């Protein structure tokens, strides 16, 4: 069956629907959906300084590619990329090369920071030091800390990430399973329970697109990286939740969209509930913290011991 719109060969059947689209109709569909998300949730405003988090994987490359395309044409904003090198041998070193080449070719300024820069150690070394701690939980704390700190230092108005609908559905479910609803209040297409100068708001332009749609967009635009998995990824229960949601999606198409849509209905109530929660400044680094010392400084102290 040809593309529903123009009768060419289809490249994808849209999730949860019978519609099939060809290459050029899909690109239009995809980019329109991103622009609609940006407008509807006010993700990017005129003349803002937008920093796009870049790992070199297909999601972040596709995001940077698309933002670069619209930065000069449809919307008028300043764009650069920020890469955090965790120090994972055989994984991040490969994607960093891709990221560098992409930025050079497209004339995009690339800022690089690393775990070694702040901790003196790569994630590989940190993991050896704490073999019983899940790598992803340490990695997540450090990455969040560095992305926020660096993008604030670079005076970014927003930090854009390649998170897609699958990622969001996983985060929502993980917070449910662990009874971490306060964390869910920080999800959504634009993060932050309320405005706080210490936090650079994070925006997710791919919020309503599935992982498969992003991969399709990446492939068509030559941005699909070789399959490459982080050494530690099997340690994270995110991947268990991902597989569970994908099996549910196969049996009951539309599951992931429904999870996210239901969540967006209650999100305003969650934000209301948590808006008065006080956020301290870490007494060591003055970054935002939920207790006296922030999670990152806590971890840093343990790493340096």
């Amino acid at each position, binding site marked *: 069956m040809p593309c529903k719109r123009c009768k060419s060969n289809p*490249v994808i*059947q849209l999730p949860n629907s019978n519609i099939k689209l060809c290459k050029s109709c899909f690109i239009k569909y995809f980019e329109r959906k991103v622009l609609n998300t940006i407008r509807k949730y006010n993700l990017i405003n005129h003349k803002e300084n937008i920093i796009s988090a870049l790992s070199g994987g*297909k999601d972040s490359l596709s995001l940077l590619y698309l933002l670069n395309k619209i930065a000069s044409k449809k919307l008028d904003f300043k764009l650069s990329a920020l890469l955090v090198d965790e120090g994972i041998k055989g994984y991040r070193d490969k994607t960093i090369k891709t990221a560098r080449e992409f930025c050079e070719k497209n004339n995009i300024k690339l800022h690089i920071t690393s775990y070694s820069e702040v901790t003196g150690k790569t994630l590989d070394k940190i993991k050896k030091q704490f073999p019983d701690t899940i790598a992803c939980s340490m990695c997540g704390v450090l990455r969040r800390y560095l992305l926020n700190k660096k993008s604030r230092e670079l005076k970014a108005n927003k930090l854009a990430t390649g998170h897609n609908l699958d990622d969001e559905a996983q985060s929502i479910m993980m917070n449910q399973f662990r009874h971490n609803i306060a964390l869910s209040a920080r999800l959504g297409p634009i993060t932050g329970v309320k405005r706080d100068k210490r936090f650079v708001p994070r925006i997710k332009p791919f919020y309503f697109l599935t992982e498969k749609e992003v*991969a399709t967009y990446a492939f068509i635009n030559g941005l699909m990286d070789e399959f490459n998995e982080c050494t530690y990824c099997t340690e994270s229960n995110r991947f268990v939740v991902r597989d569970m949601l*994908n099996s549910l999606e196969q049996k009951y198409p539309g599951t992931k969209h429904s999870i996210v849509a239901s969540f967006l209905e209650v999100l305003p109530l969650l934000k209301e509930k948590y808006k008065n929660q006080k956020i301290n400044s870490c007494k060591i680094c003055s970054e935002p913290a939920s207790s006296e010392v922030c999670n990152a400084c806590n971890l840093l102290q343990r790493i340096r011991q």
Partner: protein
Amino acid sequence: MPAVYLEREDKMIKVNELNVKDILKKLNINPTTVIIARNNELITEDAVLSENDKIKILPVISGG
């Protein structure tokens, strides 16, 4: 017999099926987790292959 390259396992196999949907079912692959390319062009799950086709199954998940 169509040839199928599985990127995740980095291996090539031969299959009897001509319908992409049947191939995925046989290999126990959830269609929401992959994209499929033939001659470097994407095809959908309801595509029907010819005997000499080579396809690639690429995982859409990103680890990390």
